[in-house]
């Protein structure tokens, strides 16, 4: 459905951030994109959704294909019209609008306006808490409620592909689990394909069908969640697990070596 082939992104004409990024998202699946801070995960999503321009970033090489067509030169509005919707990092709700107006903003590109009302109810079904707060100013919602609103707002566009940038950011573990189970439900019930960017590797690997790990602007490891969970590097760097009984000094050396291999 979505394919990135050797994509290169440069900010401000000089800062090379994506260095030959390739990735594939098959229809109907949940694909996780993991990586540490500054790896280029958000940049990848923005390159897909056409949101690089306001930040003075540019796709300078490679191609981004959606349903077989090149999309990396489209305006953001046209990318949304094609069916790709990005839920940006940090929630980014419209603070001065109330909950329902935020949802209406999400439906901006819809041409079948008669169904918007009905879709608001669908969102309320997934997130009953939003319904209770429908007239409340979004800026005063709790962080978890704002994340629900950000996802609900994306649903309003009825996207084919929903891209979520760190939906677990700053939320309590229980709420993270709740939100991820809803993401799974959206994927199954609405048939929405999902590209999920996460720092929280554990939970991302739980819901994903397939995962990519990126470092320093390119993919370094891919596989099904089960494979990745067994991978020693992933266990150590992303799941925070150590092999029992390994001596510290030895581990540090290995750590360094693995790092080096990934970065080269």
């Amino acid at each position, binding site marked *: 459905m979505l394919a990135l082939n050797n994509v290169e992104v440069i900010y401000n004409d000089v800062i090379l951030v994506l260095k030959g990024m390739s990735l594939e998202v098959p229809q109907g699946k949940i694909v996780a994109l993991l990586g540490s801070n500054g790896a280029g995960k958000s940049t990848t999503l923005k390159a897909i*959704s056409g949101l690089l*321009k306001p930040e003075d970033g540019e796709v300078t090489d490679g191609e981004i294909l959606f349903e077989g067509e090149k999309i990396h030169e489209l305006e953001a509005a046209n*990318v949304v019209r094609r069916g790709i919707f*990005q839920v940006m990092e940090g929630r980014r709700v419209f*603070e001065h*609008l109330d909950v329902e107006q935020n949802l209406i903003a999400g439906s901006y590109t819809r041409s079948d306006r008669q169904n918007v009302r009905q879709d608001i109810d669908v969102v309320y079904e997934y997130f009953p808490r939003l319904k209770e707060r429908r007239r409340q100013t979004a800026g005063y919602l709790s962080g978890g409620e704002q994340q629900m609103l950000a996802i609900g707002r994306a649903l309003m566009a009825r996207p084919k592909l929903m891209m979520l940038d760190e939906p677990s950011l700053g939320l309590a573990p229980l709420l993270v689990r709740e939100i991820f189970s809803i993401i799974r439900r959206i994927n199954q019930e609405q048939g929405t394909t999902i590209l999920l960017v996460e720092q929280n590797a554990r939970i991302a690997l739980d819901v994903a069908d397939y995962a990519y790990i990126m470092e320093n602007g390119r993919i370094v490891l891919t596989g099904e969640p089960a494979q990745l969970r067994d991978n020693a590097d992933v266990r150590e760097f992303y799941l925070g697990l150590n092999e029992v009984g390994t001596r510290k000094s030895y581990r540090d050396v290995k750590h360094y070596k693995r790092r080096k291999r990934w970065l080269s």
Partner: protein
Amino acid sequence: MDKFLQLTLTGLTNGAIFALVALGFVLIYKASDVINFAQGDFLLVGAYLTFGLISQVGLPWSVGMLIAIVVAVLLGIVVERLVLRPLIGEPIISVIMVTIGLSSLLRSVVIWIWGTMGAQFPSFLPSQPINVFGAVVPADRFIAIGLAAVLLVVFTLFFRYSREGIAMRATADDQQAALSMGISVQKIFAIAWSIAAVTAVLAGIIVANITELSFFAVSSIGLHVFPVVILGGLDSIPGAIIGGLIIGLLESYVGGYTPSALALRTVFPFIVLIIILMIKPYGLFGEERIERV
């Protein structure tokens, strides 16, 4: 009592005109956080252009007015294309500086074509006196109040319920997030500027109808935009209307009850402006910044 009523009516009608100009200002601010220093100058364009089309070209007033409105819409689109679009992603302050430039440009063009001399405006609005509880007010002054009232309702509904209105407020809140919704920020800016120009042009036509056409008088009304919006709140539609009416009334009373030699009337709005800035920096109805950690 008679004098009081007369001053009140004059104040309200003047205030309604201030409110019309301020409405456009608020619209632009709401959509883009840009303080438009050229708002008052749209008034000049409206008044002089209509004068030119009707008195100098000889078109019927309805056609002249229609053309002026179309020009206002185009002006909004041109400003977006040539001025705002290249500045997307730049700090708001550069856009604000550009509106100062636009202000000088519009003024110079008006002076270049028509000069600063006064002229007799072809008053086409009905001006027969209307008697209100003993005070006499020409009919055209009431048109300003009617128009302000209608626009207040229309804009309020527009921002609360319509898709474009909500998109406009969303854009003001967070431009990049608005883009991610598929909202075309360019289109939103063009709409905001066009509507702002149209309301100001209409106000300009009404002003010229009520008084005679004078560069000084029309620009001084344009200057009222700042005290009005600072009083009402930069981003509040009802604030623009109420701010306009309050400034209009205060000015009228001050003018009527103090010796005219002191000319307090002219400085008064700016005294109000400074006081308001000290006690209520967001204005009477302004949106407060939402600070959450």
